[in-house]
């Protein structure tokens, strides 16, 4: 199998559905800090020639990256896990003041069947922290509902010109396997 075929084979149906929404919305840049729950979607984006995927050292870099993409006429999405939300707060202030749109997809940790208690405080705070910073937040534990919410968030962020986030519940992803 070539890389795109391999990426397609390993991704879950909901990751395929999100990728299709990103393509339909004209997302041209994706920034990510790897997370196990995002692996399939990251691979689909990396294998997609229409998407420039950029690995980041910390999530806040993604806010800058996608602001730059917007200055250049491109739309972007940022993939992270819930601990990364805490790294982004000052840059979310920047995005709000300047009105930069972007989709933020957050895979949740610190909730359903979490084995690592150090993940719990930031997981619990991720949604409220995003709301506090002016980001429109949706969340779901239902893989059937998830693609529709992503589509809504994409339409909303580019209409409002402010970031929109979708939190993907840990129960939907499944507990991290070791």
């Amino acid at each position, binding site marked *: 199998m070539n890389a795109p075929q391999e990426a397609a084979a390993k991704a879950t149906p909901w990751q395929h559905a999100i990728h299709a929404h990103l393509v339909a919305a004209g997302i041209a840049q994706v920034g990510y800090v790897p997370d196990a729950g995002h692996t399939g979607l990251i691979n689909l984006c990396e294998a997609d020639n229409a998407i420039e995927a*950029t690995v980041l050292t910390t999530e806040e870099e993604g*806010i*800058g990256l996608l602001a730059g993409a917007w*200055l*250049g*006429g*491109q739309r972007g999405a940022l993939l992270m896990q819930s601990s990364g939300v805490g790294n982004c707060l*000052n840059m979310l202030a920047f995005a709000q003041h300047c009105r*930069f749109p972007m989709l933020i997809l957050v895979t949740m940790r610190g909730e359903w069947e979490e084995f690592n208690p150090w993940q719990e405080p930031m997981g619990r705070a991720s949604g409220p922290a995003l709301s506090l910073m002016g980001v429109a937040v949706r969340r779901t534990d239902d893989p059937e509902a998830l693609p529709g919410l992503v589509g809504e968030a994409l339409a909303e962020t580019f209409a409002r010109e402010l970031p929109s986030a979708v939190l993907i519940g840990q129960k939907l992803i499944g507990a991290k396997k070791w």
Partner: protein
Amino acid sequence: MVSGTATGGQLDRRAVVARLVRDRGQAAVVAGLGSPTWDLAAAGDHERNFCMWGGMGSALTIGLGLALAQPSLPVLVITGDGEMLMGMGSLATAGAKAPANLAVVVCDNERFGETGMQKSHTAYGLDLPAVAAASGFAWSETVRDEAGLEALCGRIYAGGGCGFASVKIAPVDLPRVMPEKDGALIKDRVRRSIAGNEG
């Protein structure tokens, strides 16, 4: 006790930035918050100036996203040593992509100039161009004099690959020259100039 191994700089920051943008044409310029924003404003207004008043540590990633979006447009990031140090990881991120149309110039006074001239890490010997080189930038250098600045300006617009320079400037606190303050207005002006109403 304060120790330091760096030698400091002599160049005038306003003259450096004015020279950097003199021959820019339609290049986009991102100025990091603090003195580089005042320096770029002092050099004159331009519809493709993205002058930052916040978001410390992100000037380089903004330049990176813009350079990736518009591969044929030269993108110049002008920032300070303190701002660059807050985004050290972004050197790794930019180096991994290394777009040929991106250049970064750090106006390095080895100080946190906006907050009382406290010494920054470059005053203690941190070598930013070495970090850029190790991160994958195609070229990097330290500039200490007028001749070096002239050579740097040639390299930036020659399309010779993703570049990085630390220009050693004198640690002086100059009067602020303030550009437009409304971030949404600044953003929309730059974006419309570059991309029309795309996106």
